[in-house]
């Protein structure tokens, strides 16, 4: 479930296009298939996250006696084991994935950057300690950790966001730390220090702006991981019981015997949505990574 920076780099390089160096990020977003697909799909799901409940044809929570019915005019994607409309649930489920994905990634970014900045800038024992902490979080298998924390804290939307954010920050931390190391020795930083600037000032005006692009690109990839994590936790029964998400749809489908009943209309769409959303976010992430880190581009023969 974890995106190691190694494989992210490799994926970015593999997908990198040629001749894009001279162009800005906007060009890359709008003129590559990765960018277009990413923006299009992400845009669609963002729209659903906001307006999904308004445009859903039926109440996604409404139950009826028409259970696990195959697709029809009334129910284009059939019904669930409670007789609810699958299509409506699908539209409404986007919100949880988007909200948890972005919020958890945001928390992860803040945590990771802070640790990376502080450790990288101040060095010494602080850094060793934080680095050790970082390594620990990198090594520990994330899903079991999330499971343990979510179970202890009784799952809800907020708990999920915190738990996922809290377990995913180490990757960002490492990247930020490496960047801060290189920046720290640069001339303009030395000059600023010689002039008597405070550490916080230096961090804020010199280090941070130069690190932001890196953080941003990496965070986008973390969004993808967060979305997958939320879905996995929901599937295992640790999702927010009061909300519909694609993960809980898969959970309910599986637990109620939808596969045995051959209810492909209930099983395929939620997973497909997760796949598309994760794909879109990942492609955008690789695009940003490539833009921010030109050395990741493959050498031409």
């Amino acid at each position, binding site marked *: 479930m974890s995106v190691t920076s190694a494989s992210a780099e490799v994926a970015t390089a593999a997908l990198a296009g040629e001749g894009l160096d001279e162009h800005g990020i906007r060009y890359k977003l709008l003129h590559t298939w990765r960018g277009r697909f990413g923006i299009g799909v992400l845009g669609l799901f963002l729209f659903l996250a906001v307006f999904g409940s308004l445009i859903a044809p039926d109440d996604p929570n409404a139950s009826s006696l028409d259970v696990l019915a195959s697709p029809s005019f009334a129910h284009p994607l059939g019904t669930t084991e409670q007789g609810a409309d699958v299509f409506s649930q699908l539209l409404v489920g986007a919100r949880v994935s988007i909200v948890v994905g972005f919020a958890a990634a945001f928390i992860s970014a803040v945590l990771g950057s802070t640790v990376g900045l502080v450790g990288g800038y101040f060095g010494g024992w602080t850094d060793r300690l934080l680095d050790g902490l970082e390594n620990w979080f990198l090594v520990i298998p994330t899903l079991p950790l999330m499971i343990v924390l979510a179970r202890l804290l009784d799952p809800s939307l907020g708990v999920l966001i915190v738990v996922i954010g809290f377990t995913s920050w180490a990757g960002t931390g490492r990247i930020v730390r490496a960047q801060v190391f290189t920046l720290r020795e640069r001339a303009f930083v030395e000059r600023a220090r010689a002039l008597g600037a405070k550490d916080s000032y230096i961090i804020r005006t010199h280090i941070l702006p130069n690190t932001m692009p890196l953080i941003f690109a990496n965070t986008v990839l973390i969004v993808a991981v967060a979305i997958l994590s939320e879905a996995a936790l929901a599937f295992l029964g640790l999702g927010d019981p009061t909300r519909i998400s694609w993960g809980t749809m898969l959970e309910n489908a599986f637990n109620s015997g939808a596969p045995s009943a051959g209810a492909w209309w209930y099983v395929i769409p939620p997973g497909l949505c*997760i796949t598309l959303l*994760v794909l879109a976010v990942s492609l955008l992430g690789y695009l940003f990574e490539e833009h921010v880190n030109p050395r990741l581009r493959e*050498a031409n023969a």
Partner: protein
Amino acid sequence: MSGRWLAGKAGAAMLTLIFVIIFNFFLFRVMGDPTTQLARLPNSSPEEIEKLRADYGIDKPLSGQFLDYAGDTVRLDFGVSQRSREEVWDEMKAALPWTLLLVGTGTVLATLIGSWMGVIAATRRGKKTDDSLLGFSLLTYAAPEYWIGIILILVFAVAAPILPAGQQVTPGVEFSSWISEALSVAEHMILPVTAMTLMLLGQYFLIMRSSMVDVLTEDFITVKRAIGLSHEQVIRRHAVPNALLPLVTLSAIQFGAVVGGAITIETVFSWPGLGELSFNAINDKDFPVLAGTFLVFSAGVILANLAADILYFFLDPRVQAR
């Protein structure tokens, strides 16, 4: 790199493991105090609760409790499952081989197939084959592995019922020999291993492709070609073996993701491994089992990383050149 480096890595691994134990302790003893759970029984008197606390050793100060906990862990005493009253270690011991079987087979297959795909893609870089393989591996990365598992069930166990949809053997059947039992296991393994392989495929494909591309563009290849080796010989004897090295280390590093996949795939297929054990413990809120499996998973990942370091130490040609 030297023996000292290796010793350093081993030491770091040990330290990480210790921190896992400390973490477990705080998480479960302090946050998930078992007596708060038991105190929910309506008829517990304060004296009974006190007795329970003494039994669990919770009336001691925190440091004493931790020493008890650490000592227990080292002796492989993870307590007793709240649900089945079995030793947690016994339950995990029985489940572990099944997880290893699933994960091991999946990893090997993913490595083989992924590398093979990576080689093909690298030698056809930029062409349609490369693009489609890239797309395929991206898809398998983005798709939730349990969803793939459910679809496999839909297609191969329900729509065209040729493969079993769960468990490791056909239940209730008496096997005339261990061979027929092994065959039954093999049959039941097909779908879960497929799901696991698909999940891991993408990473190996990407890494292999990337290192192949790097290696293929090295100058020496041109030299070898100039000498007169065939295309195929160059790829087979030189490019591939060297590109495989990072793959080995990747296998270990991916263990974290593998663990996550094991949990969800075992749940989907009712595969009796550590993943399913964890899943049941989630539903039962069986904290001793959750703590035990978390420890084992973490230890597994730490050990796998260490093994990768060791392997790298022995395989890195730079070391050979010493």
